[in-house]
């Protein structure tokens, strides 16, 4: 069998993972791999771009790729080079340099780009087939040029623009109140910028949160100094003339006539898959490049897609001719990594001869997938707001209210805790006791436990309030606040309780030393001698109403 040539287009975090997983097969010569990446830098973790944009981290800490290791294994790395076209008949990819790369398998990991909303004053390019054929050079592999003072937040160049505004403490307007927009808003406000979030829904994160959680979140945002303008549809941008004669962003104008002035407008209106190469090559696309559960294109079994550009849809008689298809690329890194792992493992297994030779490429239809089962369908992803002082976690449909009844879901139950005054809110939606959705704001321990329970599909405790208490002052029910309860342990080294010490005191041991001789309390590390003295003092006074000792000290506390 000849050695399969694999070409990967796209070297983001998903592409880098694919490369990493294939390295052994490349190193031992059972596969050839060429990687084409548009950004001239090492692959980095895009999840951290918002932190980079406020100076919270640096590129070194974000790198996920290892170009040197890849090259050492024999991978051809073409970074800073854009692919311009795919010739599926010839099985070649044309690069902007004019080179043609031949492939047996083509893997598209081209990712997504930020959506540019319709705004007067901002040019927005269409990427339908007609436009692409006409303006290929300007559209393929390139993002739209935005006017000065307006940026998305997707890549390092975007982040640099934001960072400059944050560093000079400028006023930043974030358009959109999805999770990415809010992360940036919070991080920038924390870093000292003046931040205003503009969105058209009634509350932030409308896709993820119900009204209660959303309103608690909004209060939390305002408390941290972020201005929130809700119910406002952005309509236009206005520009100002700078001293050097250039024009740059000046204000955002909303449909209801608000004029919001700022120095930088960050567009955070979602992302769209980069599908233009696929579209031009005649591959089926919808909201992403359409692939079957084995990640192969509907249109060409030699072409695969993974990550933010891939839309996984099982092809059926019914849907194969429909224009719109269900689902969309998840936009999250976890599923992309799992796809990269699975596809690389699948290629490597085949190269080792573990799958039948005709199973993946070479003309077999998309219904033939060798021995390997498809990667498991992705579960609805949990959304977590990455922010320092606001804890928001949500997943699933949190719309149902506790008293709603739904004949289609008779097992559904909803439990809720709302404390807007203290910026806390939790809703748990269960089906037969197992979480199907939840939203949590301002309760980090609870959110963390719910996350774990959701991921593991574990049944919730029947007493749901147990899950709320993690974040309360009575976090530890065993401590029960009373250090002088009869069964409370005083001396850990010797397992001596309050009642034993009291008994010793009653029979005449009235000093710490005597108690030590009687019960061994205080004869280990000695750390409890103070408490023994207190127990003795209480016993002597016959007092039962002394307050528990030890209020938390905020100055040094890790928990404060």
């Amino acid at each position: 069998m000849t050695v399969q040539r694999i070409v990967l287009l796209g070297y983001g975090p998903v592409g880098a993972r694919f490369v990493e997983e294939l390295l052994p097969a490349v190193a031992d010569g059972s596969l050839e791999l060429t990687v084409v990446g548009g950004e001239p830098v090492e692959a980095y973790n895009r999840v951290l771009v918002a932190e980079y944009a406020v100076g919270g981290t640096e590129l070194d800490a974000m790198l996920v790729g290892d170009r040197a290791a890849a090259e050492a294994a024999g991978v051809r790395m073409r970074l800073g080079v854009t692919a311009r076209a795919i010739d599926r008949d010839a099985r070649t990819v044309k690069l902007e340099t004019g080179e043609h790369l031949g492939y047996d398998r083509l893997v598209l990991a081209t990712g997504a780009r930020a959506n540019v909303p319709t705004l007067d004053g901002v040019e927005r390019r269409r990427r339908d087939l007609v436009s692409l054929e006409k303006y290929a050079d300007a559209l393929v592999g390139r993002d739209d040029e935005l006017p000065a003072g307006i940026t998305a937040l997707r890549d390092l160049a975007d982040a640099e623009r934001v960072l400059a505004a944050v560093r000079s403490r400028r006023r930043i307007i974030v358009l959109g109140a999805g999770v990415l927009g809010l992360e940036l808003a919070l991080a920038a406000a924390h870093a000292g910028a003046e931040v205003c979030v503009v969105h058209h829904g009634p509350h932030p994160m409308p896709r993820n949160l119900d009204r209660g959680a959303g309103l608690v979140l909004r209060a939390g945002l305002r408390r941290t100094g972020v201005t929130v303008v809700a119910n406002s549809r952005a309509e236009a941008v206005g520009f100002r003339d700078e001293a050097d004669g250039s024009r740059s962003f000046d204000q955002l104008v909303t449909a209801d006539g608000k004029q919001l002035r700022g120095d930088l407008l960050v567009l955070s209106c979602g992302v769209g898959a980069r599908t233009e190469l696929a579209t031009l090559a005649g591959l089926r696309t919808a909201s992403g490049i359409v692939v079957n559960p084995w990640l192969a294109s509907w249109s060409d079994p030699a072409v695969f897609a993974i990550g933010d550009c891939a839309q996984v849809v099982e092809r059926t008689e019914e849907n194969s001719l429909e224009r719109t298809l269900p689902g969309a690329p998840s936009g999250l890194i976890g599923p992309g990594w799992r796809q990269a792992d699975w596809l690389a493992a699948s290629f490597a297994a085949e190269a080792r001869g573990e799958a039948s030779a005709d199973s993946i490429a070479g003309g077999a239809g998309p219904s033939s997938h060798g021995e390997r089962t498809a990667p498991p369908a992705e579960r609805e992803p949990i959304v977590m707001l990455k922010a320092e002082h606001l804890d928001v976690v949500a997943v699933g449909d949190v719309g149902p209210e506790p008293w709603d009844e739904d004949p289609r879901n008779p097992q559904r139950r909803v439990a809720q805790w709302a404390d807007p005054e203290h910026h806390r809110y939790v809703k748990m939606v269960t089906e037969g006791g197992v979480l199907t959705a939840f939203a949590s704001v301002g309760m980090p321990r609870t959110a963390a436990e719910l996350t774990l329970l959701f991921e593991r599909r574990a049944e919730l405790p029947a007493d749901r309030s147990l899950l709320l208490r993690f974040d309360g002052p009575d976090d530890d029910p065993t401590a029960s606040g009373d250090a002088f309860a009869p069964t409370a342990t005083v001396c850990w080294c010797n397992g001596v309780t309050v009642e034993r010490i009291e008994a010793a005191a009653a029979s005449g041991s009235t000093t710490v030393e005597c108690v030590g001789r009687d019960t061994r309390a205080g004869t280990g590390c000695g750390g409890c001698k103070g408490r023994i003295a207190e127990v003795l003092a209480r016993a002597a006074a016959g007092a039962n109403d002394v307050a528990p000792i030890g209020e938390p000290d905020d100055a040094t506390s890790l928990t404060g």
Partner: protein
Amino acid sequence: MPRASVDTHCPYCALQCAMTLGEPDASASPSSTAPVSVTARDFPTNRGGLCKKGWTSAELLGTASRLRVPLVRGADGELAEASWDEALDLVASRLRGIRDEYGADAVGVFGGGGLTNEKAYLLGKFARLALGTSRIDYNGRYCMSSAAAAGNRAFGVDRGLPFPVEDLDAADTVLLLGSNVAATMPPFIGHLAGAQSAGGLVVVDPRRTATARLTDDGQGLHLQPAPGTDLVLLLGLIHQVVAERLVDADYLERRTIGYAALRRSVSSWWPERVQSVTGVPATALRRLARRLAAGGNTFILTGRGVEQHVDGTDTATAAINLALLLGLPGRPGSGYGTLTGQGNGQGGREHGQKCDQLPGYRKITDPAARAHVARVWGVEPEAIPGPGLPAVELLQSLGRDGGVRALLVHGSNLVVSSPNVAAVRDGLASLELLVVCDFVRSETAALADVVLPVRQWAEEEGTMTSLEGRVLRRRRAIEPPEGTRDELWVLAELARRLECPATFDTDPERVFEELRLASEGGLADYSGIDYAMLDRGEAAYWPFPRGGTGTPRLFDERFAHADGLARLVPVSVRPAVLEGPAPDELTLVTGRLLEHYQSGAQTRLVPELLAAEPELRASIHPATAERLGIADGELVEVENARGRVCCPALLTTEVRVETVFLPFHFGDDRAANLLTSDLVDPVSAMPEFKTNRVRLRPAARPAGRLAEAGAPI
């Protein structure tokens, strides 16, 4: 009669608290069997304190269960008394026969981390020369091997604490991962008081243990990750330290290699992702990363909780990586360490009872090491067998083709302490000969063909090496019971009967003198230490080369790799590790209680300890109990494919809802290890004791009743 006032150390854990044994206490309870009184002695480790086990330790010296005469299993299948000559002749002839029939590797030796340095050393020599077998390993494989492997990989050397314990006193922050020291070595917690008063004691444990509660009232922080997710937690901390530029760049440059690859290996573990795996809030992770990097005196310590996993070596490695990034190892007042558990768990892993090791912590595969030790032993290097099998694999080979047919057990109750003990019992039953040296009739001794009654702590001389790598003298305070023999004598007698020409001294000091020579030039170099020096009370920390000085702080200037640099070793998470229990399963966590020590063979014989913790109980969360319809104290069955244990339930919020905790101190059908898996860490061969899956239900009720879970009870 006891000798007046003898200074020695506690028989139990690796803290080796100093104590003085004297005339029996007149005020002691009349039921006491202790032939001596125990007084705590001022010493840097225990500072005049002892825990409940230490205070009651002398009871065991007079226990009625003491073995006082050799036992040999007769034709009737019962153990019957025999003379020493009869017993030893029998053992020697059977060993010879088995060796002739199957080869030398058909004889195995299983040692223990409680044996003195002298015994551990001589046992290794006995196996290699008198038996000619490679098949020797020990129960330290169940506790210290992962941390040891990680330490060797990163630092080039493995000494549990590479600094004296007192260094912890001045700490501002101590990150304690997977260790319940408040129950397992209580006087140690005195050294955490400084961190507590600075609000900086951070305990990572899925259980809200006594140690975790030391963080209450603003004294620190308890993180309660789901069992088995410690590695992810550590990768998250490393990620945050890297992302926020909290690393000690100058230190990394001067003292380590491997930063670039390490950095890349953690870039995908941002705090929110870690939260979704561990259940530890991202905010807590961020705060902790900053606290660790705040520049105060900072220590990171690991225990069995994070090490006894199939990825234990990687987890310990991640803890070391974190410490290195922060520049802690070798910085005055800061550091990384692992808390060794067994009394001589440190010395026990240095002198050659590990399957891949020769004295002085030398590698058995290293020709120079073999040549050195062969010279000391007066043999050709070829006479020393190669590497053998680590403990779990050794036990799996029992009775099998090419496996071990005869096993000698020293200082270990392996049918209680081994993982998957049902399989181990089967293995022992298939042996042609099982010989157990012990001073009480342990569960393992009860299965033996020959039981040899040996001496215990206050009846013998020797040395122990504590968790901080300090060599201590164990001294004889009372005359041993008639009929018992020292293990050194047993080995020498067997060697003589097996016609081994090598020397087997029976005097501990002379054995130590030989150990000094054998260790000379090795990593754990004892050549500069002698009994007289120890008797003068000098603090002897290894390495202590001849004519040199000891090394209280190991990494002040360099690490033990040839270039003096520490290795940052990237580690990654294996996906299977992250799978939580199925909906009808719980995660079983095993561990220890204050009152008992290891397999409990000793502490269950001390009336006061047994009275406090008389039986096995399964700790479960009240919410879980409610779901399963279990009341406090009700009998429950804990079960999986390997076995079943039946015991009362103990309802407590100390455990997480998806876990059940069982102490492993109990034997027979109450052995928690009936349920544990014998899968091992691929690097250290240490088994998984903390994330086995089990099902739980009320006992004596059909499984079908589970459907009614949640009904009022």
